């Protein structure tokens, strides 16, 4: 006896195929939804802001008069933040990852720490702002200076750097480190000569992506009380500063008072986007260029 009846089969066939086609269209629509919204956003920002970008805007000081306002202060502020975030997250983050992956005894303690770090990566950024405010601004009485902002942002992206560095280290094939240990190398020699070089592309890619998140963060900086006022350019770690996302935030807030501020905000967004795009390109470049096969 045959279980598959030919007539029934044909009947069902067309409905199955129709269902397949409908779902294909639905998935396409889901994809397009995101793309279209993004495109609208881009078009709006570029039509509003592109005209305002010129050399004076990029290099000028902040001003209440829209046509004379420049964002050099914010660009410098963001650069200073990066100068802190990059070394702090790389050293602390990669160090933690090396310890957890290679030195720590595998056990409850290690998995407890690892789980918590993954959880920390999901904590809202404003909470890190509060942490920074409590520790760096108040307890260490640094005030809302570059150092406090940089350390806060470092804390914020540290979990991301740790997790991505851990994954990169774990991806180094065991047989490479075995070969090194087998010749009498210590753990540190193996880490330095074999594991780090092999995992560097992964570590750098993760770190740059984390960095681009830090650049775009606004919430923790607002909590720290970072201004966007007529302040001198920051020249050191203990100067007050403003940053690109803060500038965007305040200009957008005040656009109800002065209409042109909205255009300035759009122009600043373009600058920030270009910066993020550059960073992501560097990450992709590093990943492609140094990716090794084993």
């Amino acid at each position: 006896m045959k279980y598959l009846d030919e007539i029934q089969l044909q009947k069902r066939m067309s409905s199955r195929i129709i269902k397949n086609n409908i779902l294909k269209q639905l998935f396409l629509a889901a994809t397009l939804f995101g793309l279209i919204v993004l495109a609208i956003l881009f078009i709006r920002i570029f039509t509003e802001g592109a005209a305002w970008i010129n050399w004076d805007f990029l290099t000028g000081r902040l001003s209440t008069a829209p046509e004379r306002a420049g964002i050099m202060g914010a660009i410098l502020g963001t650069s200073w933040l990066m100068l802190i975030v990059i070394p702090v997250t790389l050293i602390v983050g990669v160090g933690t990852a090396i310890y957890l992956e290679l030195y720590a005894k595998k056990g409850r303690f290690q998995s407890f720490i690892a789980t918590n770090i993954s959880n920390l990566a999901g904590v809202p950024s404003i909470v890190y702002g509060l942490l920074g405010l409590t520790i760096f601004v108040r307890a260490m009485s640094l005030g809302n200076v570059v150092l406090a902002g940089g350390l806060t942002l470092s804390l914020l992206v540290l979990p991301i750097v740790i997790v991505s560095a851990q994954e990169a280290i774990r991806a180094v094939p065991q047989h490479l480190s075995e070969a090194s240990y087998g010749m009498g190398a210590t753990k540190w020699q193996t880490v330095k000569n074999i594991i780090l070089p092999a995992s560097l592309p992964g570590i750098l890619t993760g770190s740059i992506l984390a960095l681009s998140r830090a650049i775009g963060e606004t919430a923790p900086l607002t909590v720290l009380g970072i201004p966007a006022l007529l302040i001198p350019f920051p020249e050191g770690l203990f100067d007050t500063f403003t940053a690109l996302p803060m500038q965007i935030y305040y200009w957008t807030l005040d656009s109800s008072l002065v209409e042109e501020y909205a255009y300035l905000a759009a122009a600043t967004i373009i600058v920030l986007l270009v910066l993020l795009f550059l960073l992501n390109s560097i990450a992709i470049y590093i990943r492609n260029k140094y990716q090794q096969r084993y």
Partner: protein
Amino acid sequence: MSPLTKSKKVKVDVNVKSNISAPKTNEIVYDTEDLNLWYDKTHALKDINLSIYEKEVTAIIGPSGCGKSTYIKTLNRMVELVPTVRTTGKITYKGKNILDKSFKVEDLRTHVGMVFQKPNPFPKSIYENVAYGPKIHGIRNKKVLDEIVEKSLRGASIWDEVKDRLNENAYGLSGGQQQRLCIARCLAIEPNVILMDEPTSALDPKSTLRIEELVGELKKEYSIIIVTHNMQQAARISDKTAFFLNGEVVEYDDTNNIFTNPADRRTEDYISGRFG
């Protein structure tokens, strides 16, 4: 330690049983006494007693999971990379118990090199691969390193093939060449013993043959312990053969005896292909 003291412990001692080869005068390099090893709760090695002699090729054969790889990795304590491992008993290397926690593994592994199952060169140049060992042991002089690299590559009979491209990535070599490079890398630390864990299992027959010829050359200067799946290989290249089964040494004797006149029924069954 003299071979005489051993005959009590080794169930089947070569000097007692061997009637084909001339009496061995070689010194013992590794002396294993009542070695037991557990991975967590799995008892992987059971009461191993085995003396390994200098400047010979000792083959370790047996079916998968018999503990042969575990045993060879115990000889340079690589087995400790598995965190749950636990050992009892003694392995004496040149008069010292290497299982003693005060024995530095880095020191041990400088004298005992290892060649792995899969060729595992570093993603570095051919030169850097061979210079790696001497460098981690503190040799910085470029001229000395050059000499070591050439000598080691010659020792692994790969020099002629790679001398014009020492700065190229080792991954450009064929599998067999990579494995000989790994042997050269191992020679560069000037070991006394070379442990080989199924070094030809990932290679084609031609490359396998080259490695086997090389092993024959190397035993003039080094003591070689080779784990192999391939019984013909053990018969071809080794002086002594130990047959492992379920974590125990069933039989250990001159290779000739093992393959022509095994004392234990299980050995006979295994080498005649009835299981394994």
